[in-house]
């Protein structure tokens, strides 16, 4: 919905959308995730959704709107529908468009002016980006997830580490990830500063796409698949920057500060700014700890939380919800916890598998699809001072509501936090919960 400025610009300049059949629209940031029968009570939010509907209709663009059984977050629906395909170039009106790189697409976020440019011309001016390879030679341990991996990567290279680069994730550790897990990984490339991240398509990618509504069929499938199999980086290719991540003993990760790079294994303690030699960084840490109301030296597992949010384009897919169900089954949440599926089809799938019953029995709220408390523009938000364990992607000050405090973690870790009411090492939940 945030692209209304782009459509306003087209209108001002009297321009048309060049290829409406190559454009897809979504309503996700402003839609309510409960009591939908009442419509959208907030007039401004309603207006955002309404403008998207009108603009899509006026320009003949396919809209996955609220009434559509396939609606959901703009980074969840296109892979689900088979719209995201290897080799495609996808400009998204949102920075987490990097998600689509998980299928071997070159996908990146653009601002409203560039959206207007691509709508009017179906082209963009682009400088060749620098390349970065992040190699993960070892498979992740069974209790670690793609979310833990990407948080560890961001902790390693920093939130500016990928600036100006496109990241290719390679290695046996990546090959072993499911396609959905790769989406989680590529999704947060932007938090590492990179505009795009991608994984070369392999047989898992092809199997994921096959049979989806927009996927090619029959003879076209064979041609497409043959082409997709060629989309691999040459042996011996050189990259502008190469990083190797040892993930063999990766522990579940959690953020303690107000930047995604402020991240540590759950077994660690809140860091002490006094140990930071750089004055600028020390000051930033102090401010972060002040905002987060944390004392250096506190064990991360001693941090009590008020709420849990499970969802977003980072972790709102069916595998994420299955992981949550695996943790909460037969247990009960101690704090307010909400689960917001990334799309209506994810929701339907979860219900078909009986996951919703597990969630409800454990005291979790089971909502409708949307961005929800990831960005807090639809009314789902934290109160000032509230502390939230969240599967989303940004822990900036005020991201989930002014004064709200966010700890980023994986779905399984968020589920464990809901059960105990504090940040918890999900691997030890059996012993304590």
């Amino acid at each position: 919905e945030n692209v209304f400025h782009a459509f306003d610009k087209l209108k001002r300049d009297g321009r048309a959308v060049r290829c409406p059949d190559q454009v897809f629209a979504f309503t996700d940031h402003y839609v309510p995730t409960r009591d939908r029968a009442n419509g959208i009570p907030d007039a401004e939010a309603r207006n955002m959704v309404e403008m998207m509907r009108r603009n899509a209709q006026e320009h003949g663009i396919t809209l996955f709107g609220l009434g559509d059984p396939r609606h959901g977050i703009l980074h969840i629906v296109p892979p689900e529908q088979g719209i995201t395909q290897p080799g495609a170039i996808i400009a998204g009106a949102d920075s987490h468009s990097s998600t689509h790189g998980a299928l071997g697409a070159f996908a990146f976020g653009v601002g409203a002016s560039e959206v207007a440019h691509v709508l009017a011309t179906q082209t963009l001016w682009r400088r060749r980006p620098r390349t970065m390879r992040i190699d993960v030679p070892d498979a992740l341990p069974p209790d670690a997830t793609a979310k833990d991996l990407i948080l560890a990567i961001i902790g390693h290279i920093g939130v500016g580490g990928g600036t100006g680069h496109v990241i290719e994730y390679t290695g046996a550790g990546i090959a072993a990830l499911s396609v959905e897990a790769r989406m989680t990984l590529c999704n947060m490339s932007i938090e590492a500063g990179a505009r795009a991240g991608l994984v070369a398509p392999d047989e898992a990618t092809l199997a994921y796409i096959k049979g989806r509504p927009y996927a090619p069929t029959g003879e076209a499938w064979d041609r497409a698949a043959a082409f997709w199999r060629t989309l691999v980086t040459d042996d011996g290719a050189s990259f502008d920057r190469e990083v190797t991540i040892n993930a063999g003993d990766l522990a579940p990760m959690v953020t303690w500060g107000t930047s995604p790079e402020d991240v540590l294994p759950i077994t660690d303690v809140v860091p002490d700014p006094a140990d930071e030699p750089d004055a600028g960084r020390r000051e930033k840490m102090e401010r972060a700890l002040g905002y987060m109301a944390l004392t250096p030296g506190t064990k991360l597992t001693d941090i009590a939380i008020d709420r849990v949010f499970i969802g977003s384009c980072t972790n709102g897919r069916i595998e994420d919800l299955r992981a949550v169900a695996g943790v909460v089954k037969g247990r009960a949440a101690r704090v307010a916890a909400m689960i917001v599926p990334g799309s209506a089809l994810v929701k339907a799938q979860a219900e078909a598998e009986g996951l919703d019953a597990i969630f409800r029995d454990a005291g979790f709220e089971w909502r409708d699809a949307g961005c929800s408390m990831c960005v807090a523009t639809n009314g789902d938000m934290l109160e000032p001072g509230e502390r939230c364990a969240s599967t989303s992607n940004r822990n900036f000050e005020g991201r989930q509501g002014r004064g709200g405090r966010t700890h980023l973690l994986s779905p399984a870790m968020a589920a464990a936090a809901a059960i105990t009411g504090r940040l918890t090492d999900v691997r030890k939940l059996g012993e304590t919960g």
Partner: protein
Amino acid sequence: MEPFTQLTAIAAPIELRNVNTDMIFPARFMRKPRDEAYPLYMFHDRRFRPDGTEDPNFVLNQPAYRDARIIVGNANFGCGSSREPAVYALHDYGFRALIAPGFGDIFAANCVKNGLLAVRLGDDDVAVLRALVTETPGTEITIDLPSQTVSAPGIEPLTFEIDPFEKECLVSGLDDIGVTLRGEDAIAAFEDSYRGDFDWLYGKRGGAA
């Protein structure tokens, strides 16, 4: 958009690294129309306390920096969300140029589209400029785009690099869509061959709506 050639203006220092676009423009204002109130949303939660009063600690609330038209920032300025309203609000508040060692990629692209010059200089040079405008509040910096130089009292002029196409857009104030559409024949020819090679991307439209 307004052409950008030369600017001499007060510069305000922002020491913080990784200033993100959520900080520059909190998401809850995304739904607002771009009207007279727009400048108020810029750095809103830093400029204003929860009770709505100004926070005197924030640099832009200090008298000497109120008329600043340039920000001297730090590494990775404008990282995070693609939201162009962050740039709209900086622009509508009155900023015309930003100087930093680096910018978020999408943010930098958005700046060009709105006539805001994002100047990349070396870490040390930016640190010198930041120190200068911090120690002597109200110091003016001059940025000359045609010659790609930044000058300030007491320092040697600094030169910066900029993409030639971006420079042309800024200096001429051109509408880039218009420029692109001059190549419409080439676009159409490309589309024809691309659609031929990758027909599976086009022919099939998804399931029932």
